[in-house]
């Protein structure tokens, strides 16, 4: 007998058929596609296969080495260059977001003369006669203004300019400058040495209002060092360094400290003096309140006990005397600090230029990529000086910013990813930046402009950089060295040689700060000094601790706000030094009493469609004599309210902070592991996963190491084509980040200890999102990934409702597909998309995929080569971005894999593990290394 014929179409196929019919009836079928091959294919390029190139990006003038992934000459992703000392294979938010700024539709595309489109020939015709006249005068009246320069080529070209114009003045303006740090070094050592703390060699660290783990050119370097000294592992129970922080504001370094003391600037000064006195400075130690004295005793004892590995840090915002005092203390402690020779030339500053502009002493002013019309201290009123000057003003920059608008000529500049350059890392290592794409617009480089000033027409940056290095390398080996340096991304052995530790003089004690309310200005963790304000990824990146997006706020302790009768969102007038600024109030536990903190970089007027008009412009209050600390602050309610936009509110997990992110001394975890033995999994309606699948992907996140820097968040956004939603949508509780960093607050409100917890999808083995999906769009694959099949998803959002971790994100609108925020729908923006990841459309649910495209690429490569996937071959975007190595990803089937070993640490736990979801992403709880002398039982 023949078996009965199966039906022609199964139930499923019938349903799919109907669906497909309905779709094709309402649409026009697939669009015709064209394939455009090369006319002449470049050597070494395979269409569809990505290529990686080493280059460098500037941050405040310093280099961070990156490896850029390009597809057919189109850069789409930046990762850290492991060989570069300032990136060491990791990134920060600014590096990750640079790719989007390359494709920013607001970039300047044309030369402007008095605001109207001009020509390059017209510019040269106007400039050259002036230069000839200036040359005849010996260069009198020629002024150059730049940001901080570490580029050997630009320094050489500027030196060349001096030959033509001996009387030329060169000014440098950087809003986040190291002026005070250099002045402090000069006070202590007699020369303005570069002082580079080496956290990786420290056992006890005291941060006196310093934020080495916060944003800045050295963040990645310090993050790596932090990972080296703070990895709490069972087999190295004593390896944890101890971190103390004393600060008026709240920094990420303070958040990671074992002990933190919030002191207003006056208290901080007393603390530092008392510490110096303890170490034999022969000062009269000020009287400290009892709790502060106790803290000082414990910290000082620890520091002295760890001589040679004890380190005290001061931030770049500390006054020079304080910097010098810290140098002296470090000298006494034989601290692990590298002292590097100072830069050869100390250019003049901005006030000198403003004075010259007002005095009519400027004939020709050339501004290279600096924006003083926005970010100069308010008392200079540089914008007015620039507007009123009769001088021939030229601005070269990638954006037509506030300064460009006030100059007679604006010249569009290459983006750093389009240009040849050379830069130095903070430790002096030189690297050569190569372009990853031909300039998108008719732009020019800084080297070209400096060449033109020198009298060399059409000097290109490639030739200029090669000339610089041809003078340094032996001629016969030049080509080989050049290729090697481009390949590696660093010039070998170019780091500055540390000097023998110089003896530090004990400076005059810092003067006592004025009493009363103080305003602290700090660089912003997402837009820095304002230069990144037009980057939507950074605008929508939640700031550490406050989780604020799309703006800044006046941060103050809850008690301080209460004292002034202010609530969150009340707009307050900040009066300081005769100027006034309005900003919304955001209470932040842990701020010192008597202190208000505001970040720079907001309130821009000519940033572009993204950055304009958000937040309060702190530069309005900044003064030349009070760049970072403004005493005598007066608060007055403005009588209106402004919504402060936060993330996390909409995705808050149910539970106690100690349960969601346990936080204990590491010794406690060793005595009482969180998961003593593997528990029998609760009975489940799910069928078990393939027990003999070749791989079982898993992730372990060490919250002890997480410094909350958000590099992973933006890396995920760049890798996975995650769109921004804009402030209006954020206000509705919507955002699209696949990975978020939750912040939990431990300890008493007066002395909180926040903990950071990055939350991607947990890839639960028994995932609650799966059984509720009516169309099976949320399903498991054999390797343990909980995958979301976008083409099946019909947008019921049941999965989102059923996810206990709240990691699913829904496209309420076509955020990436026709309803983009602001100018994000411009065609050029689409160039940043990763071609290996679907761009999701409206009505579709999405979430973290463990970077399934990277897994797939590794698997296909392994299958082509007939071998298994090697350990470490798949690195997720968040993992490779993380400066402090907090995220590990790999195959749980391999006992020797990092993820498997971490799962046996005593502080290992599963988030909301009691729900029986059996998550593949698990955590190491936050381990501390407290000083027993300072531990008090919590009430």
């Amino acid at each position: 007998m023949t078996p009965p014929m199966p039906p022609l179409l199964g139930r499923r196929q019938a349903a799919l058929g109907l669906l497909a019919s309905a779709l094709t009836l309402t649409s026009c079928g697939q669009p015709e596609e064209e394939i455009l091959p090369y006319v002449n294919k470049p050597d070494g390029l395979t269409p569809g296969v990505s290529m990686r190139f080493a280059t460098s990006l500037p941050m405040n003038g310093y280099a961070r080495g990156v490896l850029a992934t390009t597809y057919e000459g189109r850069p789409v992703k930046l990762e850290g260059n492991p060989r570069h000392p300032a990136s060491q294979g990791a990134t920060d938010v600014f590096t990750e977001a640079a790719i989007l700024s390359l494709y920013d539709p607001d970039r300047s595309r044309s030369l402007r003369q008095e605001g109207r489109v001009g020509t390059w020939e017209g510019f040269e015709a106007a400039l050259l006669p002036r230069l000839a006249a200036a040359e005849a005068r010996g260069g009198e009246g020629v002024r150059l203004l730049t940001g901080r320069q570490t580029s050997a080529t630009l320094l050489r070209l500027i030196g060349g300019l001096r030959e033509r114009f001996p009387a030329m003045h060169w000014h440098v303006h950087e809003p986040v400058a190291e002026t005070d740090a250099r002045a402090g070094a000069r006070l202590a050592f007699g020369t303005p040495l570069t002082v580079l703390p080496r956290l990786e060699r420290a056992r006890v660290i005291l941060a006196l209002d310093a934020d080495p783990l916060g944003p800045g050119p050295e963040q990645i370097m310090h993050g790596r060092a932090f990972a080296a000294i703070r990895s709490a592992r069972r087999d190295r129970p004593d390896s944890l360094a101890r971190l103390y922080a004393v600060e008026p504001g709240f920094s990420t370094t303070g958040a990671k400290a074992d002990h933190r003391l919030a002191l207003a600037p006056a208290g901080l000064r007393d603390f530092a003096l008392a510490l110096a006195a303890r170490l034999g400075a022969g000062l009269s130690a000020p009287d400290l309140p009892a709790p502060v004295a106790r803290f000082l005793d414990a910290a000082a004892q620890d520091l002295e006990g760890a001589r040679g590995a004890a380190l005290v840090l001061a931030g770049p915002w500390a006054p020079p005397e304080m910097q010098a005092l810290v140098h002296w203390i470090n000298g006494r402690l034989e601290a692990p600090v590298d002292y590097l020779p100072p830069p050869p030339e100390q250019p003049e500053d901005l006030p000198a230029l403003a004075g010259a502009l007002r005095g009519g002493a400027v004939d020709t002013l050339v501004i290279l990529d600096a924006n003083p019309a926005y970010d100069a201290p308010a008392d200079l009123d540089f914008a007015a000086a620039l507007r009123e000057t009769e001088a021939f003003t030229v601005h070269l920059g990638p954006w037509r910013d506030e300064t460009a608008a006030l100059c007679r000529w604006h010249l569009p500049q290459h983006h750093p990813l389009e240009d040849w350059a050379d830069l130095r890392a903070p430790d002096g290592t030189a690297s050569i930046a190569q372009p990853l794409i031909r300039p998108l617009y008719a732009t020019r480089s800084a080297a070209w402009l400096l060449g033109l000033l020198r009298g060399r027409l059409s000097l290109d940056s490639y030739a200029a950089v090669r000339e610089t290095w041809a003078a340094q390398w032996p001629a016969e080996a030049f080509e080989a060295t050049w290729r090697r340096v481009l390949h590696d991304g660093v010039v070998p052995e170019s780091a500055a040689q540390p000097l023998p530790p110089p003896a530090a003089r004990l400076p005059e004690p810092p003067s006592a700060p004025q009493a009363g309310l103080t305003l602290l200005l700090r660089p912003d963790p997402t837009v820095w000094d304002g230069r990144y304000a037009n980057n939507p990824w950074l605008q929508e990146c939640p700031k550490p601790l406050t989780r604020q997006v799309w703006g800044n706020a006046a941060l103050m302790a809850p008690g301080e706000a209460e004292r002034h009768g202010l609530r969150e969102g009340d707009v307050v007038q900040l009066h300081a030094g005769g100027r006034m600024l309005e900003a919304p109030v955001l209470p932040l536990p842990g701020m010192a009493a008597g202190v208000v903190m505001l970040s720079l970089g907001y309130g821009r007027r000519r940033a572009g469609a993204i950055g304009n008009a958000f937040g309060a412009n702190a530069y309005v209050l900044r003064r030349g004599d009070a760049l970072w600390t403004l005493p005598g602050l007066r608060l007055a309610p403005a009588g209106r309210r402004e919504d402060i936009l936060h993330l996390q509110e909409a995705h808050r997990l149910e539970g106690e902070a100690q349960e969601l992110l346990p936080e204990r001394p590491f010794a406690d975890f060793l005595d009482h592991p969180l998961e003593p033995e593997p528990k029998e999994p609760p009975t489940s309606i799910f069928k078990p996963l393939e027990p003999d699948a070749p791989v079982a992907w898993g992730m372990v996140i060490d919250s002890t190491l997480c410094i909350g820097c958000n590099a992973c968040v933006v890396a995920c956004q760049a890798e996975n084509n995650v769109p921004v939603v804009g402030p209006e949508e954020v206000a509705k509780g919507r955002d699209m980040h696949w990975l978020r960093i939750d912040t939990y607050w431990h300890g008493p409100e007066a002395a909180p200890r926040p903990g950071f917890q990055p939350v991607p999808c947990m890839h639960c083995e028994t995932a609650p999102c799966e059984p509720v999906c009516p169309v099976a769009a949320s399903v498991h694959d054999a390797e343990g990934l909980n995958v979301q099949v976008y083409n099946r998803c019909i947008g019921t959002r049941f999965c989102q409702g059923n996810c206990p971790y709240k990691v699913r994100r829904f496209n309420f609108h076509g955020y990436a597909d026709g309803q983009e925020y602001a100018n994000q729908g411009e065609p050029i923006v689409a160039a940043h998309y990763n071609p290996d990841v679907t761009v999701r459309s409206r009505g579709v649910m999405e979430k973290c995929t463990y970077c399934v495209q990277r897994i797939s690429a590794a698997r296909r490569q392994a299958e082509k080569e007939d071998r298994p996937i090697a350990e470490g071959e798949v690195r997720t975007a968040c993992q490779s971005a993380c400066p402090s190595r907090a995220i590990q990803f790999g195959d749980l089937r391999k006992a020797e894999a990092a993820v498997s070993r971490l799962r046996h640490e005593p502080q290992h736990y599963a988030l909301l593990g009691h729900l029986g979801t059996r998550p593949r992403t698990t955590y190491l709880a936050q381990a501390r290394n407290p000083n027993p002398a300072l531990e008090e039982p919590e009430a």
Partner: protein
Amino acid sequence: MAQHFPPSADTILRAVLAGAALFVVALLAVLLVRPYTAYSTSQDRIVEQPVQFSHAHHVGGLGLDCRYCHESVEESAFAGLPPTHTCMTCHSQLWTNAEMLAPVRRSLGEGKPIPWRRVNQVPDFVYFDHSVHVKNGVGCSTCHGPVHTMQQTWQDKPLTMQWCLDCHRDPAQFLRPEDKILDMNWTPPADQEERGRRLIQHYLIETKNLTDCSRCHR
């Protein structure tokens, strides 16, 4: 009182009801079958190209290797289309004045690519990789049909997900030895099932999760 409806009204009503029911059934049937028809899948559709390139002549006649033009098929997801320079390796010497090749010469002269039109098209949410298939025993003609006989190229297979899954569920019936991948005339031998099973082991193909969604969609 007069009748409102004539006696035929009943019949008309029944006919209309039956007709409506029939219409619904017919509509459903059409909707059900339509996506599997060649009309919807574009199977056997010939695409007009800017240059009347004949695979029959170049492959069937002259015996050019597939990889001469589709050179990245073993390394990349994209098999590759020849740069204009590849065409010109021969056609700078042969048929240099042929009308048919004018677009190729124009492309070289103007430095603008030839806008070929895609024949085998899968939706954007499908991430198909040529290299992993040809490296693991799937031959060109299995998916592209007898290209060496095509004067104009057509889409030989339906390219529906069902069609993909036919092989992903049971690759043994389609796999070839390494030296037969490019063979346009290969047909499965009588003992293909047995050979296929051995080839799965030879290529180390992990068949268990070949139907995972994440294999092709991401």
